[in-house]
């Protein structure tokens, strides 16, 4: 299990570093091209409350948590 964990972390870090080093520097848009990205419906923060409600429901009914945000505790859910 530990080797699987290490593999996952190394894989993610490598992917992030490679993307950062190569692709990310040339991807994206200029500041004056952000008209669409600035729309409210393009912001994940726009639905943060709904998604946190979703996470709370699924946390209490399923074994998985995390990914989108912290996977922690805070509820003795039945």
């Amino acid at each position, binding site marked *: 299990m530990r080797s*699987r964990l290490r593999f996952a972390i190394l894989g993610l870090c490598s992917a992030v570093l490679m993307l950062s080093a190569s692709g990310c520097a040339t*991807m*994206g848009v200029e500041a004056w091209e952000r008209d669409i990205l600035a729309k409210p419906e393009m912001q994940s923060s726009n639905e943060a409350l709904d998604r946190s409600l979703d996470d709370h429901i699924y946390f209490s009914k399923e074994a998985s948590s*995390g*990914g989108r945000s912290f996977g922690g505790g805070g509820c003795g859910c039945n």
Partner: protein
Amino acid sequence: MQLTKKSSIRPAVAAMTAALLGAGTVPAADRGKLETSLLLYSEVDRVRALEGIVGFERAIWGDRLLNVRLTYDGLTGASPNGATPAGRFQTFTRPSGNGSYSAKPGAIPLDDTFRDTRFSIDAGLAQPLGRLTQLSVGAHFSSEHDYSSIGLNAGVTRDLFRKNTTLGVSAAYTHDVVSPVGGAPIPMSAHVGHADDEEEPHEHEDDDDEGEGTGPGKGKDVFDVVLSMSQVLDRMTIVRLNYSFSHSSGYLNDPYKLLSVIQGNGATDPGEPVGYLYESRPSVRNKHALFAGLRRYLWGNTVDLSYRFFWDDWGMTSHTAELFYRQQLGGGHFLQPHFRIYNQTSADFYYWYLVDGQTLPQYASADYRLADFNAYTIGLQYGIPFGELGHLTLGGEYYMQLGKRGPPNAIGVLRDFDLFPDMKVFMIRLGFSYDL
């Protein structure tokens, strides 16, 4: 001057959002935001809940942003206690020790004494450090009659490459205390219950366990870390990659869950229970999740597609795929269908039941949440503008869990019963938000 102030607050809002969601930096309201949400949750024949949230964001002390969120949950209804159905009436002592509840022949035993209220408060403060870096800190407290939780979190995000890339790291520590009604049972100890040909009269028909004496508290510590990256691909597309790790240690049992001990093949009544044991889980759990999300503007509408792979050291893995499609209807109105598909494998120590006479395992649980099952969500939300700065939303969702009927080699009478407590849930949501 106004422009300068606005631009300095935007990163603070983004940092707070990122810290709460473990996500990349995204701008939100300029000055602050008021959000409320009301959720009506109803499981068919089981738990019903009402949850209300009020959230408030406001710029304070210049470019710092304060965020406060209050949540109230009220829950009531019945929850599967983990025992298998039987060919006879089954009677279980309530967790408080006062009175009992029963399950009819062939029915999944449900503890009908479930009633609780929960209050929580979350607060956070975000602070930009220069033009590209944002720091945030937060705190959490929640309380219900047999459970309390207190936590701290902190995060930092950094914009790179003309703000097209955002890297983030956030961490949280939570200390929970479980104070089970009737005291925390000894794992794998016997629960007082029995099966009879006739139903036993209830001693306290209207009893519930809220407010009944809770036993000594049992602690649980949770450490969380989220690494995040968001990347603008083009004018219309942004992607997010997250890795989250969660380490829990301490009391991880559900003190109200049982396992049936049944008669084996060759006994007088194969499959019928001879007793019930309290569950036993490991005291440590390490959870990992990889999350990938893509948001794309498509002919004036928005597609939000995400996938999560989850695994832990209890032997569980899960896949979650989710899709939101926001269809703009003009005038600020929108319609948003939502689909979610979820699949999880069972924990290494999940047992449908234990067999009388066989060696007891060190860890065992029959909690359906640790079983192998699929879940599906379908929903629809309608958005209505409220003035120039606010909007109302009304939505409905249907959630369904479908598990296996039982093990392929089910014993005796259990072959005739569906051992997984399939669940159907209806949800209605009302939301209101207003940019301040």
